[in-house]
């Protein structure tokens, strides 16, 4: 095999659409998740209030950094799971919603009260 061009084992499944990814699977009573992501590149989180969102139908849980303390990361454990205190990049996850449907989860995001005091990026 070494020195020869070899096709990847999962190739045929991928080019025929047979390969299943997580988004292709449906399990009974499964929940759907959506992440609230920072709209700005840098800033201090002034308000992140999930109470309104929690009340929406179909919403089962919403978590923020308060629920997931600590740091993770590759080699150097310096990255919070969910933004804590400040945001460092556009798209940084700030909260996670679990709901009965994807639509309910997406709706819940819009009901999270978010205020960020932007800082120069």
């Amino acid at each position: 095999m070494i020195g020869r061009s070899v096709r990847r084992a999962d190739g045929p499944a991928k080019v025929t659409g047979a390969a299943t990814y997580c988004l292709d699977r449906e399990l009974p009573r499964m929940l759907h998740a959506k992440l609230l992501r920072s709209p700005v590149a840098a800033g201090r989180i002034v308000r992140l209030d999930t109470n309104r969102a929690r009340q929406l139908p179909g919403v089962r849980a919403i978590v923020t950094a308060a629920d997931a303390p600590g740091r993770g990361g590759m080699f150097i454990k310096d990255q919070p799971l969910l933004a804590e205190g400040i945001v460092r990049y556009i798209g940084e996850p700030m909260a996670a919603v679990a709901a009965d449907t994807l639509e309910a989860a997406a709706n819940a995001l819009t009901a999270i009260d978010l205020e960020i005091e932007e800082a120069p990026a």
Partner: protein
Amino acid sequence: MTYELTVNGEAVSVEGDGLKPLVDALRDDLGLTGTKTGCYEGRCGACTVIVNDRSVVSCLFPLALADGADVRTVEGLAGEDGTLNPLQEAILDAGGVQCGISTPGVLMTLTALLERNSDPTEEEVRAALAGNICRCTGYQKIVEAVLAL
């Protein structure tokens, strides 16, 4: 409402709202999960299918518009017995598949291209792929695959 369409040569009926995205009808109602969703706003191309010989982003294609249409998805590329078609073989030989999530959309875009233009230049291939985001391959091997056909 019930819509009648042909998918990969087979006549099917799909129930739903006329505005339901075709991608949802294919994946959820027909169980054809080969077509992927990415952005749901027509920008990533993962949902690309062929409708009446034209490649379209099925996330923005209303089911009502597919009524009476001929739809082709990645599941319809290989032969009945599973034999891969030349494009599928070429992309595998060239190493143009990595995680594979963009692959179905890429293959449908390329299929539509090759039906319009059987001998595209590199520039034409790259231009055709402008609507398919592929984070893994950097497109090089995909382009090589098409040029090798």
